[in-house]
């Protein structure tokens, strides 16, 4: 049901090409949805002093990361005071092991899930299925792609690559709605099916947008209410939280909840904000009997140790960089081959997956810089893309021909005479018959007509005299 296989980031170009060539409807759906998100984000930023908010958010996150060890322990102590159980997971399988003991102890058979990218990163659904537990995604977008057996293609809008007609067909087949059902009717059908799942579930799973260290408050942002239900109806709630999600103070949430919503969807704040303070207390009617917070590293401290790339850990997973990215818009997220796509995925991949495995993704960018202009925590994404490209060159992960070509070019460039002669030589070369067999150049000519040089170079015009 959710046992999809990611290709891998190394297949980026092939996967992107397949999408562009064979699935023009994906480009259409992703393009129009992201442009709409981006326009709303712009409007929402205009409604606040966005530049000052972004400075503040960057500084608070940077501060929290600089004292991560202290704030995490403080958060743990507060969570325990609140009655939650805290688990520390270094690697992904340690995080998943938390589920093993709970499933056995409580005889869990069905789990409802609120949207969580970390649970995707950990492949929680596949693990649950291995334990004989049926995971049910309850976010509408996640529900749609779970029915289709696909991974999410966007951090915030997992089914962004699907058209309304795709959803109509799916719901017609699976839930019996008419083929011309309007979006409202489709949503009601999903709600009807999901309501039963909430009531019958033994386990609720969520991620966490922020974890306030001083009070141990877990903050969750959503629009549909499914996270509220997933975290309050089942008797056991497990929250997977990346260690970088900690913020120093409860008061910081006021800024982050608003800024994240504005960046993500252009809303002043999410329709539902849950501030969770542990399990149901004796005088409360609702809430789980047990709350487990799993603090997950899974490569994050390794990324933190990188002198430059650590800044990516400020990410609040709003998806604004995806929405504004002209590269992401061509394909949606699947082509990136792992959980996180778009600009943020491209700078997280080499850090979290390892340099070699993540390497193609930092090249999936024209360095246009649109992402840096929208990031609510001011991650210098283009600079970090360059950082990983440099690391790739240092590690010998680029083709020999490229390395050789680059050094030859540099060697010529510091010898103006040679450079000028080479320029004249290249101008006179009849490229058309040989272009398709030359690396780099064939990449250009495959998609475009060859550029025609000016009749004379400027150098020559200058020597002849400019009237």
């Amino acid at each position: 049901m959710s046992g999809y296989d990611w290709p891998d980031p190394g297949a980026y170009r092939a996967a992107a090409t397949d999408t562009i060539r064979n699935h023009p409807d994906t480009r259409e759906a992703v393009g129009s949805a992201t442009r709409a998100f981006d326009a709303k984000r712009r409007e929402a930023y205009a409604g606040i002093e966005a530049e000052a908010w972004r400075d503040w958010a960057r500084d608070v996150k940077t501060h929290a990361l600089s004292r991560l060890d202290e704030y995490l322990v403080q958060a743990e102590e507060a969570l325990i005071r609140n009655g939650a159980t805290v688990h520390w997971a270094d690697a992904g399988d340690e995080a998943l092991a938390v589920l093993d003991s709970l499933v056995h102890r409580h005889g869990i058979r069905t789990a409802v899930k609120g949207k969580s990218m970390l649970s995707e990163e950990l492949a929680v659904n596949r693990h649950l299925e291995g334990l004989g537990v049926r995971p049910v995604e309850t976010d509408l977008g996640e529900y749609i792609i779970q029915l289709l057996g696909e991974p999410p293609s966007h951090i915030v809008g997992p089914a962004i690559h699907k058209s309304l007609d795709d959803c109509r067909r799916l719901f017609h087949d699976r839930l019996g709605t008419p083929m011309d059902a309007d979006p409202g009717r489709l949503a009601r059908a999903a709600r009807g099916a999901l309501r039963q799942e909430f009531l019958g579930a033994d386990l609720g799973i969520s991620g966490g947008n922020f974890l306030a260290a001083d009070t141990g408050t877990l903050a969750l942002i959503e629009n549909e209410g499914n996270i509220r239900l997933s975290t309050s109806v089942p008797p056991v709630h497990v929250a997977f939280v990346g260690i970088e999600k900690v913020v120093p103070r409860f008061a910081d949430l006021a800024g982050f909840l608003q800024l994240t919503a504005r960046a993500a969807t252009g809303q002043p704040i999410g329709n539902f904000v849950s501030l969770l303070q542990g399990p149901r207390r004796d005088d409360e009617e609702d809430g789980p009997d047990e709350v487990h917070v799993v603090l997950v590293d899974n490569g994050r401290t390794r990324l933190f140790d990188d002198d430059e790339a650590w800044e990516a850990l400020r990410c609040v997973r709003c998806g604004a960089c995806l929405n504004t990215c002209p590269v992401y818009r061509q394909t949606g997220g699947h082509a990136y081959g792992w959980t996180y796509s778009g600009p943020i995925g491209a700078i997280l991949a080499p850090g979290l997956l390892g340099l070699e495995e993540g390497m193609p993704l930092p090249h999936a960018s024209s360095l246009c810089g649109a992402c840096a202009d929208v990031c609510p925590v001011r991650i210098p994404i283009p600079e970090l893309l360059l950082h990983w490209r440099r690391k790739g060159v240092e590690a010998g992960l680029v083709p020999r021909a490229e390395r050789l070509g680059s050094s030859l070019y540099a060697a010529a460039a510091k010898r103006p005479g040679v450079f000028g002669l080479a320029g004249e030589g290249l101008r006179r070369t009849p490229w058309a018959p040989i272009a398709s067999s030359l690396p780099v150049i064939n990449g250009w000519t495959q998609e475009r007509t060859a550029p025609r040089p000016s009749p004379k170079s400027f150098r020559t015009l200058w020597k002849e005299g400019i009237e």
Partner: protein
Amino acid sequence: MRVSLFATCLADQFFADACADAVRLLRHLGVEVEFPEAQTCCGQPAHNSGHARDARIMAEHTLSVFDEADHVVAPSGSCAAMIRSSYPKLLGTPEARRLAERTWELSHFLVHVLGVESLGSGLAGTRVAYHHGCHALRELRVEREPVDLLRNGGAEVVPWEADRECCGFGGLFSAKMPEVSAGMADRKLETLPDVDVVTSADGGCLLQMRGRAEGQREERSFVHVARLLWQATRTPDAGDPLRDVT
């Protein structure tokens, strides 16, 4: 006022007439123009591909070529941005910072150093679409300058939904990820309004869009903004350079 023209390796070969028009324009405005012939490439292709050592070699060379210049003006937002934003980080020297402060994209220089508002009305009746190259727009924050100069020169700058979106050139990106790059150019062309000419401060972007547009149903004309700005100083009937992409 003395200016050193940085033709840039790309415009030297592919937009020679635009470089020549930049010289004519600057001279017309009373500026003395030099062309240090030892100039080659700013190093951006190597820098953007992660070849830091090669980029540094080219940056140091460019720095030595322009070390004495009062101002360096380039008919390219991208190459000017390489010097302005990346050289100080790449080289980390006071000389690099000094060169950064004195380097300008052409329209940026005209407006902010020369204080030019209008060049003439030689573009009257010309419908233009202006493509904002990413590095001019987001690194140099050059946005209104070229558009105002075109408009004040009589051109009608037609609104273009995607005028601030990347065309997909991105230097070697266009050859490393050609399919995605082409998709990005197609988005530009799909939204392009009905105009006489598409222009930009960056030749790379023009080559990319033109390379993708050729062979499509509608013929489009792609002209470097330096040619149009020179044209703005002329009388409207002084030839028709708009059909010539070089």
